[in-house]
């Protein structure tokens, strides 16, 4: 298992470098120019100087390794420095945003908590709703509950977050006036009232994102439970005289969780993608909104870094899913 993990970790390095290269070349080859938004009255020689100041003077085979070095070496050094008060970085050049002229990672660090709160919470809520639905749907297959569960998950697959989000805003903020439509990130939780407000403003974005998760995970849970419920060991367990709850909750559920856990791990990157849209709907100033603003302003270092971070997340989650599968299911041997 350990050798497998190490091999996969090593393999993911060229994968990540290739992905970084693809993103970099896409940004590089694209005819769009970060200077195209500048006024036309700027003389060409000044424009050329501005390009140089942005670091665009060098050809790509100089800038791509430089970006890799900044991402993988310089930025972690700054991290360690700020954590332990050391001085590894020694004033090395960090990845600088074109728009704000400040280090990209500082801006990202400011935005991450909001995104993690909304996205992480929605994932937890979504999975927590999905698992019981899946279990009951499978145990009572073709019952009214099962049919309703199928229908709800069909809706979860079909209604895009930019419509469900807008719909709940119209219903709960505009017509009923119960919940605020804009997520206020400056809000601080100090006492019960502010906590209540935080819950109120979180419930809509969280539930909109959770609907997607629930739809997917409950389907997998149901299918996996159905696979296991028909197995011989279930009959054996019943024949031994175990109560129904022990059979279902202990024997079947444990075995059914194996594929579901990997699905849960694999779904994490895609929920960040969904967060891009949800943050736009609820005006959460998280990572997704940062990406959209950076895109509109042709802020290439910012776009590159955020996109690559998402790619890292995908590769990492694939790895975790594969390893979890091996850990949870002793029948699977990678070596």
């Amino acid at each position, binding site marked *: 298992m350990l050798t497998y993990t190490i091999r996969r970790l090593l393999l993911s390095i060229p994968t990540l470098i290739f992905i970084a290269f693809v993103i970099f070349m*896409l940004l590089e080859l694209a005819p769009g120019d970060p200077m195209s938004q500048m006024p036309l009255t700027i003389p060409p020689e000044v424009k050329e100087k501005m390009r140089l100041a942005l670091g665009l003077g060098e050809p790509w085979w100089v800038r791509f390794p430089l970006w890799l070095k900044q991402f993988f070496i310089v930025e972690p050094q700054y991290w360690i420095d700020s954590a332990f008060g050391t001085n590894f970085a020694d004033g090395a050049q960090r990845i600088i945003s074109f728009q704000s002229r400040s280090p990209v990672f500082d801006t990202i660090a400011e935005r991450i908590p909001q995104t993690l709160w909304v996205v992480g919470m929605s994932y937890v809520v979504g999975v927590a709703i999905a698992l019981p639905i899946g279990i009951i749907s499978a145990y009572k297959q073709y019952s009214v509950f099962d049919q309703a569960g199928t229908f709800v998950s069909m809706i979860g*697959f079909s209604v895009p977050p*930019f*419509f469900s989000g807008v719909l709940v*805003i119209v219903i709960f903020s505009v017509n009923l006036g119960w919940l605020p439509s804009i997520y206020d990130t400056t809000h601080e939780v100090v006492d019960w009232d502010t906590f209540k407000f935080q819950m109120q403003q979180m419930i809509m974005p969280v539930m909109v994102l959770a609907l997607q998760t629930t739809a997917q995970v409950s389907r997998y849970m149901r299918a996996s439970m159905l696979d296991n419920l028909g197995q011989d060991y279930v009959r054996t367990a019943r024949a031994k005289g175990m109560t129904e709850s022990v059979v279902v909750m202990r024997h079947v559920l444990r075995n059914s969780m194996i594929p579901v856990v990997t699905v849960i791990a694999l779904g994490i990157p895609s929920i960040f993608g969904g967060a891009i849209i949800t943050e*736009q709907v609820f005006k959460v100033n998280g990572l997704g909104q940062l*990406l959209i603003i950076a*895109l509109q302003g042709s802020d290439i270092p910012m776009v590159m870094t955020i996109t690559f971070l998402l790619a890292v997340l995908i590769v990492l989650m694939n790895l975790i899913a594969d390893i979890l599968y091996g850990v949870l299911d002793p029948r699977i041997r990678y070596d």
Partner: protein
Amino acid sequence: MTDLSMPSDTPEPVEKTHNQWWDVWDQFRSHKGAMAGLIFLAFITLFCAIGPWLWDVDPGKLDIRNKDVRPIYVAIWDGEAKTSWARPMGTDHLGRDIMSNIMQGGRISLAVGWTAMILAILIGTFVGVISGYFKRLDWALMRFTDLVLSLPILPLLLVMMLLFRDPLRAAFGPETGIFILIVAGIGITSWMQTARIVRGDVMALKEREFVLAARSIGTPPRRMITRHILPNVLSPIMVSATLGLATAIITESALSFLGLGFPSDFPTWGKILFDSVDRMTAFPERVLWPGLAISLTVLAVNYIGDGLRDALDPRIRGL
């Protein structure tokens, strides 16, 4: 005359040989959700395709005097509201007729969805068949598929939209250029699942006797693939085509919703939704119509996919 007196022990008329697609259709028809989905998809397609001829209002025509007309049903509970039978779904803040916009937008959204889906299916099937059939190419192609699968799709699509928009617009005109860009973008980022499924099926088929028989009489690889392999992987391809259509429609609307799709005077469902969000407090119906159109179409397509999967599975069909 003798015929009449003949005893009834004549052999039963040979049962007409079924086309297997009739069986599939029979099974498909018994799936209520799938039939409802098919009917709705047909309805919305006709609504968008034929609608503009029957409802002959230019979707881009500004009519400032009749701006902000509410839909006709608002009159039921609010007699004061500005409604008009000439504008059954109301007009927007510039007086453009919403019904004709929904029709025009639906044409674009459905066209993008279908074309992008067909493109993705073509690429996916090609990669899957080649990789499953030719062992030498398998490793490289599958590693490539894995790599593409680990790309963050939505951010990359956004980047592509933003960066390639102007040159394509200059080359093909504003509408065709963006159409090509969106279709190509969605197509080349959503073929991977199809490729994986097709590859698995092709590898299993290659071990079957009929393939061996075909090879033993000297069938060249090309004819082997087109005559023997492809017809047998048609069902998984059709199922993933329905999923692909649903995803393509959602992705196009998402891009338009983020303001990176078609230009603003060129309606698609996602674009109409995006433009209406600012005024949804006063005019919630403008958000409702395009959103319902997207959601119901995707729901219909998903149900069709569900029914198709059941109908194409011989174990469920009882054969």
